[in-house]
């Protein structure tokens, strides 16, 4: 055959080979990112299920005085949900012996039928001791942030709904003022297949956004999927969980609300929300040991849970330890672990919430 035809055949063969290699690599990437072969770590604690919490408690945050806020009933596209009702907010007083979460009444102009709460954060205003509760809400799978004021021990008064084009796929927030917060976007593309491609091709396109009434801007980028976000006890550092990159990224926060990247700590798991022990500065993470089991939910082979604690995160050698590990029989798909004086509250995407003794 002629030279040209031979060259053309060779090029086609090379193209097919390259495509096959790319597909193979994509398959391996998904396997590795989702930690799909990983063994289940087991660590038992003395735990009890929290009453009334049956459809998940995606985020939990505990105030210094032992008051815990829980966001429940999340419906997230692609993840299981067993509730037909809208999401709800609960409060639990850890200092009370009874230990039963109480549903918070929501007053004000907010459509409760489409309430779909995700990440939460609480801001305590020192000037008048008001407690502001910020909740990421996904009515009809949109993204907005609701600001409430906590009143009379069982009520959330709705103050404001915040929407912005930069807040397009908010996962979690951390409040730094009465109407000021940092938010994580957990996807770049709304379309699931396109977003999957960003994971396969190692595209770090997700961002952290700072919101204030005066300005809204992107303050950090380069995340595969920014999930949980929280702040150090001295308010100097912001912690972000890049769930798909299996690490916690640390940023220094300055007066102008700019974030400077400090370092990353690898965690070896898909970690969701971050809670910070205000006394020790320890980081507590609710994680998914196996991402594939979460996405392809099978009640016979359920997604497990694990809780990882990071001590001395700012030192040269942070120490990671497994604080809880379960194969899904006690708790499926843990997303958050909030410590309080020797106790630990665990939340999940769609399952239950646990109260454990450390």
């Amino acid at each position: 055959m002629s030279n040209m035809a031979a060259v053309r055949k060779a090029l086609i063969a090379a193209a097919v080979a390259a495509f096959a290699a790319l597909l193979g690599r994509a398959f391996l990437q998904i396997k590795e990112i989702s930690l799909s072969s990983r063994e289940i770590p087991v660590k038992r604690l003395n735990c009890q299920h929290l009453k009334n919490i049956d459809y998940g408690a995606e985020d939990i945050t505990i105030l210094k005085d032992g008051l815990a806020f829980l966001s429940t009933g999340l419906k997230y596209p692609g993840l299981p949900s067993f509730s037909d009702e809208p999401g709800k907010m609960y409060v639990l007083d850890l200092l009370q012996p009874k230990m039963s979460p109480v549903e918070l009444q929501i007053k004000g102009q907010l459509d409760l039928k489409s309430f779909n709460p995700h990440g939460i954060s609480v801001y305590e205003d020192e000037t008048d001791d008001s407690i502001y509760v910020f909740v990421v809400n996904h009515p009809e799978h949109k993204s907005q942030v609701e600001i409430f004021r906590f009143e009379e021990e069982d009520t959330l008064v709705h103050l404001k709904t915040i929407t912005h084009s930069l807040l397009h796929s908010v996962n979690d927030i951390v409040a730094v003022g009465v109407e000021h917060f940092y938010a994580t976007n957990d996807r770049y593309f709304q379309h699931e297949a396109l977003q999957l491609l960003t994971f396969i091709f190692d595209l770090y396109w997700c961002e952290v956004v700072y919101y204030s009434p005066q300005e809204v801007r992107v303050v950090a980028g380069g995340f595969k999927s920014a999930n949980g976000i929280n702040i150090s006890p001295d308010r100097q550092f912001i912690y972000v969980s890049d769930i798909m990159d299996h690490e916690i990224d640390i940023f220094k926060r300055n007066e102008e609300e700019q974030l400077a990247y400090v370092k990353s700590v690898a965690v070896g798991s898909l970690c969701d929300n971050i809670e910070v022990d205000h006394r020790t500065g320890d980081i507590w993470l609710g994680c998914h040991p196996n991402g594939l089991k979460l996405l392809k939910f099978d009640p016979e082979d359920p997604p497990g849970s694990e809780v990882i604690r990071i001590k001395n995160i700012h030192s040269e050698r942070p120490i990671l330890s497994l604080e809880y590990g379960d194969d899904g029989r006690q708790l499926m798909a843990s997303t958050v672990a909030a410590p309080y004086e020797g106790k630990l509250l665990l939340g999940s995407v769609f399952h239950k919430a646990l109260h454990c003794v450390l």
Partner: protein
Amino acid sequence: MGKWTVLSVVVLLVALLLGERFTAVRRRFLVDRVVANNHLQNCVELKHLDHGAEDITIVGDGLAFISSGLKYPGLPTSDIPGKIFILDLHDPRLKPVELRLPRSFDVESFNPHGISVYIDPSDDSVYLLVVNHPQHKSQIEVFKYDEEDRSLLHIKTIQHELLHSVNDIFAVGPESFFATNDHYFSNELLKYLEFLLLQPWTNVVFYSPKEVKVVSEGYYFANGINMSPDKQHMYVADIFDHNIHVLERKEDNMLTRVKTVDVASLCDNIEVDPESGDLWLGCHIDAKKVFIFDPKDPPGSEVIRIQNIHSDQPVVTQVYADDGHVLMGSSVATVYGDKLLIGTVFHKALCCDFK
């Protein structure tokens, strides 16, 4: 095409090949893998085992044989010759005792690796078979355990060309055993090259006075080997393929593959609980940290248990994990009663409470 074109294409191909190999090896070695600490209660260091306890096997009534002092090419070593220890798990003091080797035996070059115990049903004699690497060669030493004297009588040394890089053995008679070869090449230089090639070329060999043959092939690095309590199946750990192979043992001692259980870790030796049939594995977290040892960034340890391995859904769980600051390079884990023993290639051995 000109000479330069050919040359550049060749250089490009070699670069691609090396790059691909480099990436492939990094994947198999689980480089930069992070595992959070998962510690057990009341772990105590076993005395005298500071130079490793690469393999531990428990027989009969709580008697543990331990091989210590392995010198493996590429791994950190000491000058102390290898030793065999015995530990009575019923003695609350938990003190390993060194077994005396015969005077005629070349103690200086003793470099023990995998071990296996065979109890002769006719007279209850205890035979200890030990993989030995004097001057990094491979041979199997057959000893008889003398309980009263706390010593080992040397019966014979077994060498064979098919047993060229033995890692572990499983004894089925006083002089019969299954052995894993962890390399394909016998030449020392080529053995180093094998780490770059990492192909499924290693095998399992059956040795008996009557016949010696290859009984299973296709392992990236056949490491630990053990047998099910009913003697129907054998288990082989392919450390760089991150899995355990379950094989059926045929009448003629050939092994056929039944299934493979993914463990997502670098598992070394296999111990089997005689009652439950559970597999206990001592594993490494990152092979690069084992071969390129840096005390500031030490190799970690992981203990994995496989339950119901013959069912449709084996349960693989992590029982213990450490980032290397407590225990470095675990290679074996075994349970007896409420205790878990964890041995390492060159570090120490722990005994932990385990329910």
